C-alpha cells in the first residue's frame, strides 16, 4: 500500500506538506501500527502477572511499602483502566482510523476499476499469461473468452483498443471490503469498549466529584458524594443480599474502596441454594429473586443461575458468588483461663460483633462465617473423587481489649483422623497464614467435654494437687518406696512439670528436667533414673487427672489396659502440648445453627455492548472476506489477424496470493484453451452455451479460416 519513493523525495514532500500532515502520515504509518500492536501486547502482559483489583493491603504485604507505592502510582493494580494503558489503546484506535481513512477511498476506487486501459505490452509482462493464435474470428473468441471469464466468476468490461478488443475481468472484489471492515471493526469495538469503560465516572473520580468510600458502613450512612444516581451509563458492581432481604443498590469497587450505585428497581432474595453432585462438588448455584420496580405491574419472579442471568431494561443480573447472610449460631463457650471453668451458652449472628467476657476481660467476638458443608479429601484418597463431608464449621475472630485479634476455625462435629475422632480448631493470627489445627480428642460419646474437663482439672490448683499426690503415692509404691515420706516432694515436682507442660510442650519439659538435674549436680549414675522417675510421676499425675475428668463426665472408668482410653490419653497429651500455641482464652463449640445464606449478585449495565457486538460482526465478516475471497483480475486481449484469424492473449494477476492464483489461472487458461479448440475443431453450427454471448450481443458463427490452433506459451 505504501508507495515507494526515495528519501529525499519524501523529505521534499513533507516540507511541502507541513507538520499537520506529517503527523497524520506518522500516525497512519504501518511501522507505527505494527509497533503499537506489539507494545499493546506487551503492556497487556503486566496485568496478567500482577493479579488485578485485589484489596490494597494484600499488595502492600506482597510488594512492601516502596514497591506498593510505586506500582500504585503506575496504576498496575488496575492496568486496564490506567491512564497510560488507555492512552496506548486510544493511540492504536487513532492510528487505525487514520490508516482507514487514508486507504478506504483508494480501496473503493480499486473495487470499481476494471483496468480496461491496460495495454498489450504491459499484459505481456505478466508472469501469468498464455497466448494463442486461432482461425476463429475475433467475435467468436470474444464470446468464448467472455464465457470462460464468467464461469470463473469474473465480471468484466469490454473495451476496444483500435481494432483489438480487451476483456478486462475482475473477481472477488469484496476482498477489498474485507480490509475496510476489519479495520473499521477495530475502531467500532474500541468505541463500544470506551462507552462501557464509563469515562464519565472516571472523570468524576479524577476531578474529585466522586469520593471513594473505604469504610465498611451501612448504605444509608454513605455520603452522597460517594453515591451515583440512576443513569444511562455503564457500570459493573456487586451486592450481597441475604435470604429474605432485598437491595436497591450495588457497590462498584474502585481502588481501595467503593462507591454506591443506585438501581431503578429492588431485588428481593427468597432463597439461595447450592446443589451438589454426589462427589461433593457444587453442581449449581441459584437464587430465587423477585424484582420490583415502580413501572412494573407485576414483579418479575425468576431463578438466577450461573450462565442464566436475569436481564431487565439493560441491567443484567448475574449469580456471581455467595456467602453467609447472617446465620444464627448457638455456641457453648469453654473458658480456658481464669478461675471459673464452667462452660456457658451464647448465641450469635454471623457478620455481627458481640462482647464476650472471659476470665474478667472483655473480648470482642466477631463471627465471620458459617459453612454447612466442608468437603475434604478422605485420608487415604487416591483420586480426587475420594472425598467426604466433615460437616459444618464456623469462623470467628477474638479481639483482645488491646486490639489484637486471632482468627479461629472450628468444626461442629468430630473429624476422623487416622482412625481417631477429634474436634478440630484452627487458629491463625493473620489472614495470610494457613490455619493450624488443634486436635482436641473426642471422648467415647463424641464430645469434647472430657478433654476440656481434664484440661481444667490440671489448671485448678486443688485438683492438680490431689491428682499429683495420688500419682506420687502410686508411683513411689511401685518403686517400693511407699512410705518413704517423699510424697509431697514428688508431688510438688510433678505439679511443676505439669504446669510447664501446660505453658510449653513436652520437649521443653524434658529439657527443663535435664537442666535442673545438672543444676542440682545430680550424679551421672542417678540422673537417668531420677529423670525417668520424675517423668513417670508427671505422667501418672496427668493420668490421675484424666481418670477424674472421665468420672466427672460419667464415663465408664478405664483400666490401664483399655485400648481406647489409652489412645485418648495419648491424644490428650499431644493436645495439651499444643495448647500453648493455640493460646485462646476460650474454646467455642458450635451447638446449634440456623443457616442464612447471602447470594452475591453482579449487576452490570453495558450500553456499549450492541456497538461492540456489531464490531464483532464486522470483524468476522472482514476477516473472512480478506482471507477467503481472492481478489483477482484477468485480461483477454483479442486482436484480429490479417488472415481472418485471431491472436489471443490471456493474462491474470493476484497481488496477495501468487501461488494459489498460479493454479487458478492455469485452470482459467486451460478452459479457454479447450473452448477455443472445441470451437475450432468443427463444433460448428452448435450453439455455444452460457450467457456471455448475449451480454456481448455478438452472435457466434461457425468456424472460419484454416489456420491451425497454436498454443503459444
Amino acid at each position, binding site marked *: 500500500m505504501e508507495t515507494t519513493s526515495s528519501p529525499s523525495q519524501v523529505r521534499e514532500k513533507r516540507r511541502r506538506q507541513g507538520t499537520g500532515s506529517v503527523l497524520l502520515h506518522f500516525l497512519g504509518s504501518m511501522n507505527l501500527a*505494527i509497533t503499537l500492536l506489539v507494545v499493546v501486547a506487551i503492556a497487556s502482559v503486566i496485568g*496478567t502477572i500482577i493479579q488485578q483489583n485485589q484489596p490494597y493491603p494484600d499488595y502492600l504485604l506482597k510488594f512492601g511499602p516502596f514497591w506498593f507505592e510505586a506500582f500504585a502510582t503506575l496504576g498496575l493494580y488496575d492496568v486496564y483502566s490506567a491512564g497510560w494503558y488507555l492512552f496506548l489503546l486510544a493511540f492504536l484506535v487513532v492510528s487505525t482510523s487514520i490508516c482507514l481513512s487514508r486507504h478506504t477511498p483508494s480501496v473503493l476506487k480499486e473495487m470499481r476499476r476494471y483496468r480496461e486501459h491496460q495495454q498489450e505490452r504491459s499484459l505481456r509482462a505478466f508472469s501469468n499469461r498464455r497466448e494463442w493464435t486461432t482461425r476463429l474470428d475475433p467475435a467468436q473468441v470474444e464470446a468464448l473468452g467472455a464465457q470462460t471469464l464468467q464461469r470463473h466468476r469474473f465480471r468484466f468490461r469490454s473495451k476496444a483498443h483500435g481494432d483489438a478488443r480487451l476483456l478486462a475481468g475482475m473477481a472477488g472484489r469484496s476482498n477489498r471490503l474485507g480490509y475496510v471492515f476489519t479495520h473499521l471493526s477495530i475502531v467500532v469495538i474500541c468505541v463500544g469498549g470506551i462507552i462501557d469503560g464509563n469515562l464519565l465516572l472516571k472523570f468524576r473520580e479524577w476531578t474529585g466529584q466522586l469520593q471513594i468510600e473505604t469504610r465498611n458502613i451501612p448504605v444509608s450512612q454513605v455520603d452522597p458524594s460517594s453515591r451515583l444516581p440512576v443513569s444511562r451509563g455503564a457500570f459493573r458492581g456487586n451486592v450481597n443480599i441475604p435470604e429474605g432481604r432485598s437491595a436497591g443498590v450495588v457497590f462498584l469497587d474502585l481502588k481501595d474502596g467503593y462507591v454506591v450505585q443506585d438501581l431503578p428497581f429492588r431485588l428481593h432474595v427468597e432463597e439461595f441454594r447450592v446443589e451438589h453432585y454426589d462427589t461433593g462438588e457444587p453442581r*449449581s448455584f441459584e437464587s430465587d429473586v423477585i424484582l420490583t420496580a415502580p413501572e412494573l405491574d407485576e414483579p418479575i419472579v425468576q431463578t438466577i443461575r450461573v*450462565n442464566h442471568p436475569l436481564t431487565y431494561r439493560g441491567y443484567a443480573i448475574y449469580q456471581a458468588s455467595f456467602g453467609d447472610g447472617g446465620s444464627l449460631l448457638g455456641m457453648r463457650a469453654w473458658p480456658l483461663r481464669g478461675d471459673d471453668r464452667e462452660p456457658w451458652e451464647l448465641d450469635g449472628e454471623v457478620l455481627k460483633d458481640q462482647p464476650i467476657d472471659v476470665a474478667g476481660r472483655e473480648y470482642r467476638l466477631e463471627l465471620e462465617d458459617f459453612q454447612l458443608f466442608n468437603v475434604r479429601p478422605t485420608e487415604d484418597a487416591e483420586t480426587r473423587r475420594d472425598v467426604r463431608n466433615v460437616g459444618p464449621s464456623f469462623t470467628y475472630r477474638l479481639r483482645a481489649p488491646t486490639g489484637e485479634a486471632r482468627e479461629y476455625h472450628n468444626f461442629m462435629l468430630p473429624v476422623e483422623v487416622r482412625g481417631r475422632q477429634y474436634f478440630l480448631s484452627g487458629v491463625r493470627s493473620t489472614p495470610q497464614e494457613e490455619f493450624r489445627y488443634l486436635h482436641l480428642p473426642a471422648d467415647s460419646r463424641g464430645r469434647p467435654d472430657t478433654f476440656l474437663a481434664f484440661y481444667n482439672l490440671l489448671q485448678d490448683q486443688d485438683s492438680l494437687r490431689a491428682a499429683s499426690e495420688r500419682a506420687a503415692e502410686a508411683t513411689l509404691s511401685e518403686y517400693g518406696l511407699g512410705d518413704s515420706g517423699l510424697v509431697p516432694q514428688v508431688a510438688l515436682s510433678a505439679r511443676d512439670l505439669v504446669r510447664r507442660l501446660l505453658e510449653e510442650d513436652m520437649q521443653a519439659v524434658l529439657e527443663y528436667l535435664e537442666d535442673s538435674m545438672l543444676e542440682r549436680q545430680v550424679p551421672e549414675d542417678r540422673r537417668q533414673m531420677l529423670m525417668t522417675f520424675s517423668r513417670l510421676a508427671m505422667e501418672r499425675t496427668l493420668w490421675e487427672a484424666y481418670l477424674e475428668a472421665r468420672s466427672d463426665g460419667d464415663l465408664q472408668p478405664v483400666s490401664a489396659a483399655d485400648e481406647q482410653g489409652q489412645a485418648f490419653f495419648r491424644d490428650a497429651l499431644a493436645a495439651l502440648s499444643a495448647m500453648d500455641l493455640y493460646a485462646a482464652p476460650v474454646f467455642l463449640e458450635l451447638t446449634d445453627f440456623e443457616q442464612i445464606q447471602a447470594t452475591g449478585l453482579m449487576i452490570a449495565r453495558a450500553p456499549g455492548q450492541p456497538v461492540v457486538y456489531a464490531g464483532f460482526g464486522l470483524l468476522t465478516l472482514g476477516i473472512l472476506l480478506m482471507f477467503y475471497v481472492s481478489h483477482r483480475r484477468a485480461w483477454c486481449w483479442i486482436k484480429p489477424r490479417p488472415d481472418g484469424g485471431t491472436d489471443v492473449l490471456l493474462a491474470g494477476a493476484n497481488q496477495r496470493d501468487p501461488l494459489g492464483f498460479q493454479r487458478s489461472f492455469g485452470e482459467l487458461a486451460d478452459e479457454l484453451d479447450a473452448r477455443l479448440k472445441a470451437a475450432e475443431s468443427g463444433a460448428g453450427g*452448435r450453439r455455444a*452455451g452460457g450467457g456471455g454471448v448475449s451480454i456481448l450481443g455478438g452472435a457466434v458463427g461457425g468456424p472460419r479460416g484454416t489456420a491451425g490452433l497454436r498454443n503459444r506459451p
Partner: protein
Amino acid sequence: MSTTPDNVIGQFDDRGFLRRLSWFDWAWAAAFLVGTLYASVHFGPWMDVYEQGILYLGYATLIWVGWVWKPARLFSLVVAGLTLFALFQYPDLAAAERNFFLNYLLSSQSAIMWMCALFPAATVVYFAGLLARSEYTQKVGSALTWAASGAGFIGLLVRWWESYLISPEIGRIPVTNLYEVFVLFAMTTGLIYLYYEHRYRTRALGGFVGLIITASVGFLLWYHFDRQAHEIDPLIPALQSWWMKIHVPTNFVAYGAFAIAAMVGVAYLVQARNPERWRQRGLPGAEAMDDLMYRTIALGFAFFTIATILGAFWAAEAWGGYWSWDPKETWSLITWLTYAGWLHLRFTKGWRGTPMAWWAIIGLLVTTFTFLGVNIFLSGLHSYGEL
C-alpha cells in the same frame, strides 16, 4: 447446458458445485442426516434449543467439509461406525473391562491410548520416509496419521457416552478440561495437517507437524499417569453452558492451525540451511512453505477471532461482561495481536521467509502460553483447567 461443447470436451466441468457431487456424496450426507435427526429426537430431552441448533450446525459443517475435502467422508463413516459399535457394547461402565473390543480398542481410554501410540509412530515413519526418500513409507505415515486422528476422535465420542454412563447428571461433551482438550488438540491438528497434505500434495512436512503432536501426546501421557487426569469429573456450574460446545472446538481449530504454521516454520528454517539437499529429499520449496504458513495462520487467525468472539458472548452471559481482562482473555488478545503483526508484516511490508518463520514459531509459544501457561501460572476466572 448439456449440449454445450464444454461437456463434450470433458477437460473441465462447468456444472455447479452441487451438480458435481456424486451419488456417494449424497448418500453419505443422507446417512449422516438420518443419524443427526435420530440424535436430535432421541437425545431431545437432554438438549435445549441452542444445543439442537449446534447439533444441526455440526451436521452442516461436517457435510460441507466432506464435500469439499472428499477423504473426510470415508473418515467420518469409519469414525461413526466404530463409535456406534462401541456404544452398542456399552450397557454400563463395567463393560469397558469385560468386553474385548472395548477393553483393547474402543473404550475411550483404549482409543486415546491408541492415538497416543499412533501419532509418535506416524512421526517416526514420516521422517524415515523423508530421509529415505521413500514415497511408500510416507504414505504409511499418512495412513498412521489418519488412524491416530480417528482413534482420538472415537476416544472423545465414546468418552462423551461414558460420562453419561457414570451418571446422567455428570454427562457432558468432553471438551471441558485440560486432558480432554489435549486429545482434541492432537486430533484436530492431525486432521488439519492431513487436509493441507492433500491440498499441497506433499507428505514431506508430516514429520515436522508430527513433532508438535507427539509433544502434546507426551504431555497427555504424563497428565494421565501422573495426575489421573483422565477421570471424568463433573462440571462446575460456570462451564455448564452450550457456548462451550462451540467456543472450545473453534479455539482448537485455531490452535491446531497455529501449531502447523509453526512447524512449517521449523521446516522452513531447516531447509534454509541447505535448500538443495532438502529439495532432493522432497521438502517443498521455500515459496510453497511460505504460502502454507500463510494459509495456516490465516485459518488459525480466522478461527481464533471467531473463538474469541464466542468467548466474549459466553463471558457476557456467565461473568457479567463480554470482556473482563481475565488473564486468559488478555493472553488471547496478545496472541491475536501477535498474529495480526505477522499478517501486517507479510501484506504491507512484504516480509517473507526466515523472519516470518521465526515469528510463526514465537507465535506458537505465545499461543501455548495462552492455552496452557495461563492455567498453570496465572489465576483468574478461567481457572478450571488447573494442573
